[in-house]
């Protein structure tokens, strides 16, 4: 056991840290709405790309640095610590690229990977549907083959960045006659066609981080099937496996920063001397630190034994629960400011409500932990 960074890891961190210090992003645009904000993130990704920092975990042959999982975790921790924005094409970098590297044909890799990295083409994820929720096997979006093309009709939801995307990682049903999860196929759908309509989906914060997609006979060339017809379930799992692996480290640092801010605020109000608040803040500190330790421990295991295990579900669960508790406590400590529309604290507070829903509800995560980690029998519900 050695809970310090190795010299290589330290060097990697210091490299990145000094680059970030010398190349901060432009200030966040306060005017111009979502478009200006997105342009700012795209610009930031281009700068990372120019310096070779857009996706260090990608192999060198695809323009990455072949960083180890630990280095990748350090990358996200440092990005979080520096409070830089997420890259515009985060889904392409974290999900789309790695999925193609596993399942794509040589042509697909050559065609799609470079513009992901450079943010020339933005990607979004078309998995969830209004009626499917956590139940991927019951997807209803349908793709029918006509000659060399697939014709797709259906509806997707929770697609973030859809309005800026060129490509959508789309899972659709191509065979209704086989068992539910067997008839799925994974496509790359061109978003720039009339048949695909994007409607912003506002959240309780008032902003529209996500969208709904309405797909009415959209066309996808057969060449854009990833991993083979009928193999969509497996390909989608690869995407989902990558989903939180790296991002978790950035979120966890963000949580740490939020807690540090809250502790500073509480200290300023003398509340660290009030045992009731001191106890609650110390408990959040324990949770934050154990979250970081558990995330790193998961990484150790992954590096030793291959793929990250389902223990990642524990980390996401603990993170989301802790972020909610933290922002709830902030409402008590910060007072009216946290209930005033448009303030940082009120945004964090409202946004946190989604943490236990997005990217796998806490209920689903507990199912996963119970079944895959503890080996408990799966509940079969009868109608």
């Amino acid at each position, binding site marked *: 056991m050695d809970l310090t960074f190795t010299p290589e890891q330290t060097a990697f961190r210091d490299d990145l840290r000094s680059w970030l210090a010398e190349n901060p992003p432009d200030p966040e645009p306060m005017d111009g709405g979502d478009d200006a904000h997105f342009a700012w993130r795209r610009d930031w990704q281009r700068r990372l790309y120019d310096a070779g920092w857009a996706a260090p975990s990608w192999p060198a042959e695809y323009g990455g640095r072949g960083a180890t999982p630990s280095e990748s975790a350090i990358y996200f921790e440092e990005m979080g610590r520096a409070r830089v924005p997420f890259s515009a094409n985060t889904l392409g970098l974290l999900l789309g690229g790695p999925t193609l590297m596993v399942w794509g044909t040589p042509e697909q890799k050559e065609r799609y990977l470079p513009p992901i990295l450079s943010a020339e083409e933005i990607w979004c994820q078309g998995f*969830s549907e209004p009626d499917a*929720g956590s139940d991927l096997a019951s997807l209803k979006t349908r793709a029918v083959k006509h000659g060399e093309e697939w014709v797709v009709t259906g509806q997707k939801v929770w697609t973030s960045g859809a309005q800026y995307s060129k490509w959508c990682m789309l899972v659709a049903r191509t065979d209704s006659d086989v068992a539910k999860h067997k008839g799925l196929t994974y496509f790359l759908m061109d978003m720039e066609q009339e048949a695909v309509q994007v409607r912003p989906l506002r959240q*309780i914060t008032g902003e529209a981080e996500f969208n709904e997609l309405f797909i009415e006979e959209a066309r996808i060339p057969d060449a854009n099937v990833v991993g083979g017809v009928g193999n969509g379930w497996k390909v989608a799992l690869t995407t989902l496996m990558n989903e939180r692996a790296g991002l978790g480290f950035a979120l966890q640092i963000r949580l740490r920063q939020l807690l540090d801010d809250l502790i500073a605020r509480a200290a300023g109000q003398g509340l660290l001397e009030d045992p009731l608040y001191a106890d609650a803040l110390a408990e959040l500190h324990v949770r934050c630190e154990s979250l970081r330790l558990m995330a790193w421990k998961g990484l150790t295991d992954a590096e030793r034994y291959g793929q990250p295990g389902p223990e990642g579900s524990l980390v996401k669960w603990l993170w989301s629960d802790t972020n909610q508790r933290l922002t709830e406590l902030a*409402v008590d400590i910060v007072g009216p400011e946290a*209930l005033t529309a448009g303030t940082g604290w009120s945004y964090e507070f409202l946004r946190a409500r989604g943490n236990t829903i997005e990217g796998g509800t806490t209920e689903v995560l507990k199912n996963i932990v119970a079944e895959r980690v503890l080996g408990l029998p799966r*509940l079969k519900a009868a109608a």
Partner: protein
Amino acid sequence: MDFGLTDDQREIQRTARELLSERAKPERVREHAEAGTTDAELWRELSELGWPGIALAEEHGGQGLGGIELSILCEELGRALAPVPFLPSVLAATLIDHAGSPEQRERWLPGLASGEIKGALGSSSDGSSELVIGAPEAGVIVLVDEDGAGRVLEAAQADVTPVASIDSTRSAGRVGGAEEAGDPLPGDVTAGVDRALVAVSSELVGVCDRALEMTVAYVKERKQFGVPVGSYQAVSHRCAQMLLETEKARSTAAFAAWAADAEPGRLAEAAAMAKAAASDAGREVTASAIQAHGGIGFTWEADIHWLYKRAQLDAALLGGAKRHRARLAAILADHAGAPAVG
């Protein structure tokens, strides 16, 4: 020992629910919340029915009924999330009624009872206030400070800065101005605040009740893996917990409403219990409602978030659960060693 409502009270409850289910439909609430406006028409209607003055004396134009009737209306308006300044108005009226001088009562209560004047009540320290719900539209604002002193400010005296709170079904503002601005309340401000706490707690009970109702309806319909999600214990036990929290809040609010009229000696304790239980319930039940709705619960389109936001404001209003438990602990400390209450 009887927890039942009288026939008259039941009639008030029934009428209020029917009227609001008609006049404060979710679409209309949403319209006003998105525009940040008050429903002036509804306010006029409620005023004509005498709701704002329900607990005020007839000599002031009120209906001369009590704390229980006021609680019933607060609960129903909370259920409906009606975009009218009913709660802030009755809070101001309660303070003036219980702690005001005869002149103050004479001056303000008739207007508050008829709904011609709107009121607001807020906490202040060092002269300026926290968020005061309804302040921008109020004709009269009552501020109470931490030492239990209170003062009445007419709109002209109050330096109100409108502030958008996260709950856009109601206006809010910060009240500035000098510490000595306004007219001191000479009476028992604490007793008035305790009655105000009962009203806020009752509104929270209504918010919880509605959140649970909407959630139960949703989880019966929504299916995952072939069965209604409400048949999974993760969801059904969550709903059971929501009911438990709601009933804790409801029973303590009922006790406090009753004590306000019938046993003022226990009001301080009862009000603190009610507000502690209702603040916790309001936050937890509405958060649970969002979670049980899954992805849709987190969207602007689902109405559940208005309840969540209203609950936050009400939970903080006149002090949150922690502050009222601290008050309770002080009351317990005074009694410690004494035999249990008979």
